[in-house]
C-alpha cells in the first residue's frame, strides 16, 4: 500500500519540559488503520496535529501526500479529514447545520449535497436526529457526527484523535466498522487510542510512551513476541488475589492479572509453562496456554510489571471478615437509589450490596449513570429516592460518620495542584481528622510506600501522571478507610502504573477493605468480584465477570470478552425495553 505519511526523526518540544515527541519515525499507509497507541501524555495528539499542519515540528521530517507539512499545510488540509479529541463541532448548531457548515468549508458543490448528506446520515444512523442540536446528542452520536463532518469530501487521510473516548462499546464498534469500511476504500486512517484492545485491531501501530516510539509494525508482530508465554490458570483454590501476588514475585513471571475467576500470567522470555510456580499451578488449578494479547506484549516490552507485593497493604491492619451481628452487614449498600434531574432520570432504582473485602465494579459508558450512582453512595449527591449505607450508617442521617469511613479517589486529578506533594499529604491527613503523632506517622508511611520523598517539594500539578495517581491514592487511603471509592482510577495511565495500582488495591482487599470502582475499561472489570452493568440509568445486569460472560456465550462465540458481554447485554436490555 502507498505510504501517505512519512515521518523521520520528528521532534516537538513545548517550553523547557521533556519533549512531547522525541525522534519519532514511521509511516501511515493508504487503505490501512494505523493505531497511535499510548497513555496520556505519550504524544499522540501532538503527532496528529503535526500531520494536520496545525503545528510545526522542531526537528525531523514530516511528509503528508509527499508534501512537506511545514510548508504545504494548506494543500494538505484540503485532502485530510480531522476529528480533534474534544468534540470539534458546534453544539448550538443542529446536526444538519453542522454538516452544511462543513460542506461549505470543504467546498462540496451544492448539487452533490443531498446525496452526500443522505449517505452520511444513513451511514452514521443520525437520520432521525438531523434537526437536533449537536449539544443534545449522546457521546457516541457526537463522535459519529464528527466523523460524518470529517468525511463530507472523502479525504485521502483521516485523522481521528481518541474517537473511542466517552463512547459506549456499541457505538465504539459502529465507529470502528465505519472506519474499517473507509480504509477498505483506500483511505489512510490514523486512530489514536489509549485502549489496547483497539490497538490490537489496527493494521499497524505506533506505540508511543512519553514522546518516544516503543514499537512500530503490525500488532501481531508485537504480540508474537510473547506467543507461547501466556497462560491462564483457572480453578485456583481459595482466594485468587494472594495467589497472583505470590506469582508476581517469582522471577520467571513478567506480568499477571486477575481475569474473572482465573489468573492470567506472562512468563519471562525463554521460559514456558514450567515457570508458573508450583504453588500457583498446584491442582486442582489448571494451567492452559492462552492467546497473547497486545497488553501482555506491551507490558513485556516495558520490562514487565511491578512485583506482587503491596507495601501499602502490608502496612494496613487486617480487618476481621464477617463476624456476628452488625459486622455481618454489607459494607456498602444501595437500596433503590434513584436520582432525577428535572424530568431526566440519571439513575433509576439501583440496588446492590457489597460484602466486606470485595471489589464491586460499576461498568457502563459515559452518561449511563454510573458516576451519579457512585456520587450518591459516597455522599456527594443527594438521592431523589432510595437510600445508601456505608458500614451500616445511613448516608442521609449520619452522613459525616459514613463519610469518615470511606476514601475517595476522583476521576480527574483532584488534589491541590499548587500545593507540594508533602503539603497535599498533610492537608488530607488534617481533613480526615488525623492529628499529632498519628498524622506524622501516616504521612511518613505514605511518603515511604509510594516513594514520594524525592518529589516531596514539587507542586502536585507538575508531577508525571503516574506519580499524580500514586499521590491521589495515598491521600485517599491515608486514614485507613473501610470502604474505598475509585472513580475511573486508571483512565489514561500506562499499563505499568495500572498494574502497580491494582497490586495495591488487591492487597488492601485482602486486608478486608471494600472497594467500589467505576470503569469503562472492559478488561479492568475482570478484577472485580462482581459487576453491575449500568445503561441509561438502569442496572441491566449484576453478577461476577464470569457469570456475565457465560450469560452471552453461544456457539458462535464460546469465550466472549467482557466487551462482548456488555454489548450483548445492553442490546438485550434495549430489546426488552422496546417490547
Amino acid at each position, binding site marked *: 500500500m502507498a505510504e501517505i505519511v512519512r515521518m523521520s526523526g520528528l521532534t516537538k518540544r513545548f517550553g523547557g519540559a521533556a519533549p512531547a515527541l522525541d525522534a519519532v519515525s514511521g509511516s501511515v499507509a493508504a487503505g490501512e488503520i494505523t493505531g497511535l497507541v499510548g497513555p496520556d501524555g505519550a504524544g499522540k495528539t501532538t503527532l496528529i496535529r503535526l500531520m494536520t499542519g496545525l503545528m510545526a515540528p522542531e526537528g525531523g521530517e514530516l511528509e503528508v501526500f509527499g508534501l512537506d507539512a511545514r510548508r504545504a499545510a494548506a*494543500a494538505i488540509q484540503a485532502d485530510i479529514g480531522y476529528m480533534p479529541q474534544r*468534540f470539534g463541532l458546534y453544539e*448550538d448548531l443542529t446536526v444538519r*447545520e453542522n454538516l452544511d457548515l462543513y460542506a*461549505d468549508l470543504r467546498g462540496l458543490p451544492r448539487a452533490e449535497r443531498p446525496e452526500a448528506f443522505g449517505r452520511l446520515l444513513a451511514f452514521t444512523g443520525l437520520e432521525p436526529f438531523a434537526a437536533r442540536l449537536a449539544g443534545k446528542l449522546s457521546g457516541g452520536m457526537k463522535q459519529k457526527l464528527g466523523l460524518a463532518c470529517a468525511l463530507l469530501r472523502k479525504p485521502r487521510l483521516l485523522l481521528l484523535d481518541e474517537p473511542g473516548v466517552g463512547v459506549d462499546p456499541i457505538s465504539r464498534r459502529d465507529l470502528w466498522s465505519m472506519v474499517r469500511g473507509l480504509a477498505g476504500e483506500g483511505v489512510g486512517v490514523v486512530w489514536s487510542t489509549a485502549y489496547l484492545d483497539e490497538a490490537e485491531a489496527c493494521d499497524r501501530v505506533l506505540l508511543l510512551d512519553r514522546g518516544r516510539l516503543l514499537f512500530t509494525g503490525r500488532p501481531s508482530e508485537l504480540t508474537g513476541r510473547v506467543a507461547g508465554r501466556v497462560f491462564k490458570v483457572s480453578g485456583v483454590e481459595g482466594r485468587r488475589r494472594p495467589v497472583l501476588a505470590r506469582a508476581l514475585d517469582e522471577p520467571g513471571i513478567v506480568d499477571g492479572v486477575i481475569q474473572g475467576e482465573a489468573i492470567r500470567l506472562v512468563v519471562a522470555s525463554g521460559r514456558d509453562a514450567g515457570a508458573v510456580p508450583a504453588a500457583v499451578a498446584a491442582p486442582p488449578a489448571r494451567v492452559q496456554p492462552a492467546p497473547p494479547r497486545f497488553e501482555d506484549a506491551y507490558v513485556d516490552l516495558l520490562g514487565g510489571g511491578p512485583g506482587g507485593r503491596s507495601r501499602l497493604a502490608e502496612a494496613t491492619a487486617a480487618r476481621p471478615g464477617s463476624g456476628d451481628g452488625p459486622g455481618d452487614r454489607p459494607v456498602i449498600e444501595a437500596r433503590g437509589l434513584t436520582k432525577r434531574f428535572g424530568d431526566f432520570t440519571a439513575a433509576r432504582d439501583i440496588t446492590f450490596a457489597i460484602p466486606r473485602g470485595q471489589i464491586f465494579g460499576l461498568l457502563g459508558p459515559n452518561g449511563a449513570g454510573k458516576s451519579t450512582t457512585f456520587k450518591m453512595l459516597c455522599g456527594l449527591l443527594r438521592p431523589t429516592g432510595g437510600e445508601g449505607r456505608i458500614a451500616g450508617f445511613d448516608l442521609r442521617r449520619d452522613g459525616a460518620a459514613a463519610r469518615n469511613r470511606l476514601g475517595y479517589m476522583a476521576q480527574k486529578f483532584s488534589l491541590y495542584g499548587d500545593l507540594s506533594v508533602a503539603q497535599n499529604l498533610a492537608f488530607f491527613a488534617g481533613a480526615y481528622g488525623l492529628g499529632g503523632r498519628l498524622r506524622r506517622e501516616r504521612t511518613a508511611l505514605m511518603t515511604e510506600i509510594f516513594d514520594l520523598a524525592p518529589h516531596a517539594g514539587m507542586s502536585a500539578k507538575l508531577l508525571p501522571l503516574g506519580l499524580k495517581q500514586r499521590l491521589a491514592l495515598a491521600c485517599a487511603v491515608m486514614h485507613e478507610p473501610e470502604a474505598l471509592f475509585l472513580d475511573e482510577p486508571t483512565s489514561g495511565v500506562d499499563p505499568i502504573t495500572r498494574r502497580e495500582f491494582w497490586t495495591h488495591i488487591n492487597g488492601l482487599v485482602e486486608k478486608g477493605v471494600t472497594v467500589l470502582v467505576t470503569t469503562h475499561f472492559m478488561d479492568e472489570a475482570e478484577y472485580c468480584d462482581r459487576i453491575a452493568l449500568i445503561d441509561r440509568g438502569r442496572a441491566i445486569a449484576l453478577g461476577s465477570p464470569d457469570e456475565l460472560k457465560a450469560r452471552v456465550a453461544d456457539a458462535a462465540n464460546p469465550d466472549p470478552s467482557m466487551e462482548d458481554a456488555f454489548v450483548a447485554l445492553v442490546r438485550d436490555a434495549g430489546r426488552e425495553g422496546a417490547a
Partner: protein
Amino acid sequence: MSAQGAGSRAPRRARGPRRFAALVRKEVRQILRDPSSLLIAFALPLVLLFLFGYGVSLDATRNRVGLVVESSTPVAQDLAAAFRASRYFEVMSGRDRRAFEEDLVRGRIRGILVIPADFAADMASGAAASVQGPSARGPSMQVIVDGSDPNTAGFVQNYARGVVETWARQRAAEAAPRAPAITVERRFWFNPELASRNFLVPGSIAIVMTLVGTLLTSLVVAREWERGTMEAMMATPVSAAELLAGKILPYFVLGLASMTLCVLLAVLVFDVPFRGSAAALYAVSASFLMPALGQGLLISAATKNQFLASQLALLSGFLPAFLLSGFLFEIDSMPRPIQWITAIVPARYLIPCLQTVFLAGDVWPMFLRAMATMLLIGAVLFLLAARSTRKRIG
C-alpha cells in the same frame, strides 16, 4: 502529486466567498441562539445607559454648605441672601465657623462659606468683591472646602465665586446705573445647562461598543478554542483571514446595532440633543469598532480561555475606555505619563467625536483625524491577531 496540488488550489480560491458566507451564517445562528450574546449586546447597554442617564450625575446641584455671616451689616446680609437664593447651594446658616467644622469633617456639608466681619468695610472702600483667601485688595470672603474630594471642592469654590460675582455686578448696576462696568460673562456653548447627562450618555455609547467589540468577541472566540471547534475549523481549507473576517463581520454589525439602540434611547428617552449627522455617527463608530474587535480577537487568540479572556478584556478594554478616555476624567488633568498611555486607548478618540456629533454637529476635520488614528490602532491589532491565530495552536 504537485500537479494535483496545484489543480485543487484554483477552485479553492473560487470557493472563498462561499466559505466566508458559511462562517458568517454559522456565527449569526450562534448569536441568535445564545442568550448571553444578546444580553451583552442589548440588555447591558440599556442598564448602562439608564445608570448614566438617571443614576450618575457629575453636576454639583444643591450642594449643602454652611454659611457663616460674621458681620451683621446690610451688605453682608444681602450677600448671604444671595447665597440662600442660589439654586446651587442648600445653605445652613450660623454665626461661628467652628459650629460647622465637624459637619465638614464628617462630610455632612460640602464646604463652609464665611462672610468675614470686615467685609462691609472693605466693600465700602470700593474695591470689587472676590472670593479669595487673605487678600489685601478689596473685600473678600472665605470658602473652606474638603480638599480630599477635589472635584466637589472645585465645584463649591467655582459656584461660590459665581454667586459673588453675580451679586457684585447687580449691586454695581443698582448703585451706578450710568456706566455699565465691563464684566466677564460666561457662556457655555453646546451644553448650556451643563447637564452632565448630555455628555455622559454619548460617552457611555463608547463603553457599550467596547463591551460588544472587545469583551463579547474575545469571549466567543475563546469559547471556540475551549470547545475545540477552532482546531477543527483550522484543519479545513479555511484560511486564517477568512476565519477572522467571519468573526468580525457579525460582531461588527452587532456592535453598530447596539450603538443604534443606544443613540435612539439617548435621543428619545434622555432628550440628549443630536446635532450632527447619522453619516458621521456611523463613520466614527465603525472606525472605533475596528480596534475594539481587533483587541477582542487578539485577546482570545492569546488566552484561548474564556475566563482569562474576560478578565483581560475588562482590564485592557473596558476599564481604559472608562477611566483613560476622557469619559469620566479629563485627560488634560491627568499626570503626563498617564496622558501618554491614553494615546493608545481607542475610546479616547471616539468619545470626543461622539460628544461633538451629539452636542455640536459634524466637525469633519476632527472626525477624520480621530478615525485615521483608530483605524491605525485597529490595523496593528488585527495584524497581531492574525499572526497569533495562525501560528499558535494547542
